[in-house]
């Protein structure tokens, strides 16, 4: 039988052996600063990457013309509106976007302007004499209407053109052009 002294000495010796074989996982306090700086550096780099990715994602999806309607198409894509203006001094108030800027930036060889137009007020103030509306029911139909308002001396003239590209005689495509030039003759 062991006495208590032997019990304690044996238990202590065994515990020391066990502790000496332990793999201690603690970080020395004087090294914690270095560890903390590395963790902070890694965290900062990660945050930087996140920021760059976030900005790139926002830039990729951001539309600067959000809310502006597209020129020349309607909602279901079955209608095309084409406006050709022979006189560059007489902008035509057709379908246009809602952008307030004056986008007379694409000028053809003959002075025709086919890009977006100033807002309604600006057009009316300058030259509100031509309105063109073209409706195509058939996807195969394309209609181009050329207006030269200098040649229209009569006021309130209305031209209706019907295009029938089907030989069966069905009126699948109707183009209606309304010209109301109340500036040329002063009537």
């Amino acid at each position, binding site marked *: *039988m062991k006495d208590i002294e032997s*019990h304690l000495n044996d*238990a202590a010796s*065994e*515990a020391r052996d066990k502790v000496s*074989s*332990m*793999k201690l996982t603690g970080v020395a306090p004087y090294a914690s600063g270095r560890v903390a700086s590395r963790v902070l550096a890694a965290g900062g780099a990660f945050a930087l990457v996140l920021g760059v990715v976030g900005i790139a994602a926002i830039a990729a999806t951001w539309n600067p013309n959000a809310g502006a309607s597209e020129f020349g198409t309607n909602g279901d894509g079955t209608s095309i509106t084409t406006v050709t203006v022979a006189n560059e001094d007489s902008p035509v108030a057709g379908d246009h976007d809602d952008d307030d800027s004056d986008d007379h930036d694409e000028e053809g060889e003959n002075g025709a302007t086919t890009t977006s137009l100033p807002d309604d007020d600006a057009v009316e103030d300058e030259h509100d004499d031509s309105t063109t509306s073209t409706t195509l029911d058939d996807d195969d139909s394309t209609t181009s209407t050329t207006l030269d308002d200098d040649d229209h001396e009569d006021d309130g003239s209305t031209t209706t053109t019907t295009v029938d590209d089907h030989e069966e005689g069905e009126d699948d495509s109707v183009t209606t052009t309304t010209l109301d030039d109340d500036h040329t003759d002063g009537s």
Partner: protein
Amino acid sequence: MTIAEHTGEQIPVAHIARVVEDFSTFYERELRPVVGLAYVLSGSRSGAEDIAQDAFVQAYRKWETVGAYANPGGWVRTAVSNRAVSLFRRKSAEARALLRFRGSSSSVPELSADAMETWAAVRRLPKRQAQVIALHYYDRSSVAEIAEVLDCSENTVRTHLRRAKETLSENLGEGSQA
């Protein structure tokens, strides 16, 4: 040449300004024994590491003061032995469960049944008696060193030792002798 020989005066040891040891050297030397002390008093290996680590962090923060003590290791042992006993008292059931769990998963061999039973009996002793036993048998501290760590007289330490061994001999078997 000692200070007394150099100055020709007898200077009390307590008044001699101790050269502050480099903390890393102190840490490397004392970490494992201090973890072991916490281990036998708490019964939890991971808890012992945490306790020891906390104590060393505290010592590091005020190392200019602690490092100038005559026995900075004693300062750390005081903190660790108090916390280890408190941990065992507070979470004894959890610590025992952890010990059993680690017995099946740890790569480090656990203590023998006799040793585990002995330390379990030590941990059931009153706080001061358990600390005295652990410091005396595991840490091999002298009575004087234990008195310094526990901030009590040497006679008090001897009393705690005697009573602890009496209780342990009763609890560990009829054949044991105090």
